[in-house]
């Protein structure tokens, strides 16, 4: 009987022997720092004053701005040796809304190797593979939904406001960018759409060299010069394009081409 008891205890002990120790994976030990992006909105070089019709664009349209919302994605830091760091450890798409202060700063989650980075680039809007309907289901991003019948996904940008037309009548405009459509005829009907056009574009920020130091955060201001959407290379005339351009690919193409110099870098600290 003692033998049975001994065997019982032995087996019981064996059952517990399977408990193993932790296997912590050591990190690579490289020194890292962080970056933080702040979004600044200027018109004619001065901070945006919204809801006041005080601006005039290159086409001579008096205009005001009420809302600005947009996405930037795939922010990339470039080194002189050609290596890059894509910001995507946690999120790769950032939503900016001038009415939501928390969106005006992006404390980037990624650990970034210390060193000098020559420049910063990003995608204005969202690339085709990521711009899929139902990607965002929660506000505020969900409110950027772009109808499926017009290409789906989400707006790249919404600038809402009003302008004074040639008859001095105040009209609303929705300067919206997203996936464009090509129509079979001059009649803009969804049934005649035969192709979609991706209007997102890459932005390489001029003078955006930064130095990332160990355990420090480099704060970078990204400036949207709003007036630049309407200046060059094309003078954008609200009177010509009208209030809504979601179904007007030529207008969105013009905006896209004007976008090359919209973004600049402000202070880097």
């Amino acid at each position, binding site marked *: 009987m003692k033998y049975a008891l001994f065997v019982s205890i032995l*087996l019981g002990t064996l*059952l517990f022997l399977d408990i193993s120790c932790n296997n912590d994976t050591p990190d690579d030990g490289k020194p890292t720092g962080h970056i933080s992006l702040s979004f600044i909105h200027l018109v004619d070089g001065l901070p945006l004053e919204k809801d006041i019709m005080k601006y005039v664009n290159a086409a001579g349209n008096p205009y005001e701005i009420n809302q600005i919302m947009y996405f930037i994605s795939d922010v990339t830091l470039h080194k002189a040796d050609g290596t890059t760091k894509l910001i995507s450890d946690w*999120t790769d798409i950032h939503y900016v809304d001038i009415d939501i202060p928390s969106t005006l700063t992006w404390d980037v989650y990624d*650990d970034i190797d210390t060193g000098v980075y020559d420049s910063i680039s990003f995608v204005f809007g969202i690339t085709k593979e990521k711009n899929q309907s139902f990607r965002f289901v*929660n506000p505020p991003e*969900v409110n950027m939904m772009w*109808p499926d019948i017009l290409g789906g996904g989400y707006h790249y940008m919404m600038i809402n406001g009003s302008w004074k037309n040639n008859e001095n009548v105040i009209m609303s405009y929705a300067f919206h960018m997203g996936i464009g459509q090509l129509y079979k005829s001059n009649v803009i009907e969804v049934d005649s759409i035969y192709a979609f056009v991706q209007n997102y574009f890459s932005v390489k920020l001029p003078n955006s060299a930064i130095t990332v130091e160990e355990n420090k955060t480099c704060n970078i201001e990204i400036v949207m010069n709003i007036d630049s959407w309407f200046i060059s290379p094309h003078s954008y005339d609200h009177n010509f394009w009208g209030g809504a351009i979601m179904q007007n690919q030529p207008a969105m193409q013009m905006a896209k081409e004007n976008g090359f110099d919209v973004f600049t870098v402000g202070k880097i600290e």
Partner: protein
Amino acid sequence: MKKKIYLFISFFLLFAAGIRAQHLSDTIVLGGVVITDTLLKRTPFVTTQVSKEIMQSVSTRDVGDYLRSIPNVSGIRKGGGAIDPVIRGFKFSQLNVVMDGGMKIENGCPNRMDPVAAHVEVEELSQINLVKGPFLLNYGPALGGVINLQTEDPHPYAKFEIHGNAMFGYETNWDGAKEYFSLYGGNSKVYFRASGGYRKYGDYSSGKTDGETTTYNTSFTKYNYGAKAGWAISPKQNVLLSYSESHGRDVMFPALTMDEKSDDTRMMSLDYSARNISEVIKTLDVKVYRTNVNHLMDNSNRITWSAKQMVADVNAINTGGKAILGMKIKNQNLSAGIDFENIYKDGVRTMTMLMMGTTSTTRFNLWNKALIRNAGLFAGYTTSFNSFKFDAAIRVDFNKADSEDTLVLIKDGVEYFNETASQFVNLSANLGLTRKITEKLSVSLAFARGTRSPNMLERYIKRLTIGYDNYDYLGNPQLKPETNYEVDLTLTYSDKKLGTMYVNGFYSYVKDYISAVMLPSSVIMPATLGVLGVKQFVNVDNATFTGFELGYTSPQAYKLGVNVIAALTYGQIPSETKHIFIAGQVVPGDIVIKNDALPEIPPFETTLSVNYRLLHGKLIPRVSYRLVAAQHHVSDAFDEPETPGFSIMNFSVAYKLSKNININAGVNNIFDVSYYEHLNRKIIGSPENKKLYEPGRVLFVNLNLSI
């Protein structure tokens, strides 16, 4: 509907009166096993058996609700019913909940609106057996405990007899009415049982002690029916064929993002049993079964419906069987058996968004023809020698899973969701020794290792809030099984004059504990309105559960009956990583939390019940006082809020009017206390994420008729 019920009741009463006239002198046999009180078996682990009478004496509207009255058994409440049992902090698939000794049901709802216990009504049960810990291995893999819900079985009679039962119950507060009828009988060869029930409950209100009451949208309608037919092939051999259906309609869950529109469950089984086959082989039991759950849920009762409509439709089928042989050689009992389970699950969520004057609709699969197959071999052995009793059991499971999912999530070389197939061989075993120190005092020590493979949800669910916290969850097809190494020490004292007392202490070390971590939004975005992100199931190194239970029951010989229970579980995880959110954004600087509490672990609680047998036991008033401590040991990683303590008092009277009529009536939560259990889920959409409170004062009456 009510008219039909009244007609049915009238017909039944008339029929019953006729039957009674015919069989006035017959002995009343209720059928099935009847145990007259909650009692402890002399096993090296803690087991509890609950009789039908006990269940009938309280205002139970849900099996899970009743189970909460057992020491160290709690429940997760998300609505009016379908409370999901938690034993010593183990929950969901960590518990093996079976019906009729082996029939399994795969719940259809990913939010667990329909745990197994919700597919059977209390009135159908003859007995509940509950074993804490991974000690009972012949019902399937067991990690944290086993619950067997035994429904009433028909049995042969010497000559043809027919009997009936009827139950009518009503509860105030949520205007809850329930009816149940059964008819059973037969002769020495053929016997049967047919039964059905209907229950309709409205919204309940919380107690008033916090100021104003809150009324929750907790209404539900459920009905069930079924039949069993038996054939006594010989005095030693029986066959039993069973079929039943259980249906739920408009079952509201204010603590979930959707409500149950409909749930249709079909259960069928065929049992063969043989007794005293030879000198050595004493029993042979064979069971085959199939259960099918069709579950439909949506958010049509929520304000979000106007902008975003979510409909989820799930089909779950569980097919299986088992065979177990019981042998006896002198004072040694041996059992050996095999079992098999095939789980199939398929489900789709349809989302429709109404924005900018247009409608967009998409369909996500929640499960895509997912399959889990589990085959088990098991054996048990018990013997006694001198003052010792020895128990041992072993089980080997072969588990294989796959799915037709096409989702691929790979980023930077890390595969989050890709290869869907997996297979495991799991070993479970236990040993127990009970030493009878004196005639009255015994001590038991039991060791166990219980391993269970990940379930359908943990392996394959895709982006749905399943209620742990405010996140969508993603399955992980490459999860490993989790293993519980447990030791139980139990001291039992039983005296005819003093009563029975037991104290149990347990320690569980769970290796490869299945928890969840948040995934970056660059990997996957949530699909549910209002959630913070997506979490994926992962194995973490380990978790521990420690605790104790104690109970005292006074001798039944006395008129005054006293019952005391107390229990505590302490769950801990050595290390958890928590991400920091600021204004909805994850920012740098993760926090590593050391020795964090496990979420959803109930606090310490104790209950004192006193009853007095009047009129030779025909009239028994009973009062119980339940005291629950505050829960301050909460999970930081899961942002689990603390819960204040509370105490409530219940009163009931059981009156046996005649041998055919029993009345149970009483009042629960006499002082209309506002309280919620720690495990109750948060109300979706409430401004401060308030938890779902328990019902306030409820007056109830149950009338049981039998002929």
